[in-house]
């Protein structure tokens, strides 16, 4: 279908973008458009104005900032998964991004767009949650930093205020000794995760010293598997790890839909967490 009419502005600077958003309550940010365009075409969204942030230099690129990597909101999925900095210092993001959609969508869809969209079925929210990223935003009121644990508020709802732009995300570097894996279960190629598990594991002397686990599509927001993480602290590879992973679905509230019932999602969370943790620990 053809989208309903809207105005379009393409500001030259971030400050102008914030102004253009503040001037119209019904305005929406347009990044890569890979989530927004289907919503407009199906007439599920009726913004009065789109503010195209696609050419703002402040939002571009992936930057090595010493103790963290700064990924600009407009870095495309394709750029992120190929970035040397990402592959060296936060490879979990590259692994998960390579599973997002398909090549043509990855050429245009952006890192910031996937996070701002706050779809719990998206792959990157759970990853950024596990890596404890910090969201950097800008509005006419100034800059804010929002920890990942506070960013995802509800289904398709983030802590971004109206007229606030996500500038990028700081991903702390985890240093040596950490292993990573993203395990995604889907029915067909190019599909969203029925459940996805992002695991970061620090290994020491044949056991797991600590683990961080983010779950995709196990509730209205991405969640950390806190109970499994607690069980994995100083767990020996083998039975102890398996038992800890049995807790992966604790305190989650997955939905039932066409693809899976909630109890099947809980089952998947346990199985996929075990796989992801073993792979991240480098254990077959």
């Amino acid at each position: 279908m053809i989208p309903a009419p809207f105005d379009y502005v393409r500001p030259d600077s971030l400050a102008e973008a914030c102004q253009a958003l503040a001037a119209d309550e019904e305005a929406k940010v347009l990044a890569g458009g890979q989530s927004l365009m289907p919503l407009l075409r199906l007439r599920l969204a009726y913004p009065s104005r789109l503010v195209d942030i696609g050419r703002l230099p402040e939002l571009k690129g992936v930057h090595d900032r010493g103790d963290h990597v700064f990924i600009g909101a407009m870095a495309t999925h394709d750029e992120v998964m190929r970035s040397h900095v990402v592959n060296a210092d936060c490879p979990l993001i590259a692994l998960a991004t390579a599973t997002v959609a398909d090549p043509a969508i990855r050429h245009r869809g952006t890192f910031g767009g996937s996070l701002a969209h706050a779809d719990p079925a998206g792959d990157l929210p759970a990853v950024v949650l596990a890596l404890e990223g910090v969201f950097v935003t800008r509005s006419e009121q100034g800059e804010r930093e929002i920890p990942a644990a506070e960013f995802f508020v509800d289904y398709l709802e983030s802590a971004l205020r109206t007229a606030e732009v996500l500038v990028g995300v700081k991903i702390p570097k985890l240093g040596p000794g950490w292993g990573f894996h993203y395990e995604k279960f889907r029915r067909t190629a190019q599909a969203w995760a029925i459940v996805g598990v992002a695991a970061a594991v620090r290994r020491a002397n044949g056991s797991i010293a600590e683990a961080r686990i983010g779950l995709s599509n196990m509730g209205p927001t991405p969640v950390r598997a806190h109970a499994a993480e607690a069980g994995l602290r100083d767990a020996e590879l083998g039975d102890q790890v398996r038992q800890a992973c049995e807790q992966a679905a604790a305190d989650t509230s997955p939905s039932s839909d066409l693809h899976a019932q909630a109890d099947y999602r809980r089952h998947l969370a346990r199985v996929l967490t075990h796989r992801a943790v073993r792979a991240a620990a480098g254990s077959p």
Partner: protein
Amino acid sequence: MPRITVTVDGVKYEEDVEPRLLLVHLLRERLGRTGTPVGCDTSNCGACTIMLDGKSAKSCSVLAVQADGCDILTIEGLSEGGRMHPMQRAFHEEHALQCGYCTPGMVMAAIDLLREDPDPSEETIRHGLEGNLCRCTGYCNIVRAVRRGAQEMGQAVNTP
């Protein structure tokens, strides 16, 4: 109405466009490039795939205004001097189409995946075509055609 400039298949156009006009509709309805079809409303099927500044994109998921200043290549810009592009020929020869609706997008996605890997394995081809759905062929002949097209393009490069 915003005025945009785009180059399509080597020809430069200046157009006044409504912001909501999709790139695929600009191509089809204003510029007569009906070789690029629309197959869905959800960005899933890939029938509308074109090259936008050298990289594959789904032209149903881009606004015409977003393409301002860009270089666009459609299926209709592939042939040279009346001769089909080697990838088009390979699709023809390997019977990689039945109704043909997905073919323009498949050919563009196939050419895109060769930018990365000029000699792709079957698996690389299947991953590279993830965003393109065919309702007819079952993909086997498409994969064969892409291998053949890749080989012929490689030879075209090696023998000047």
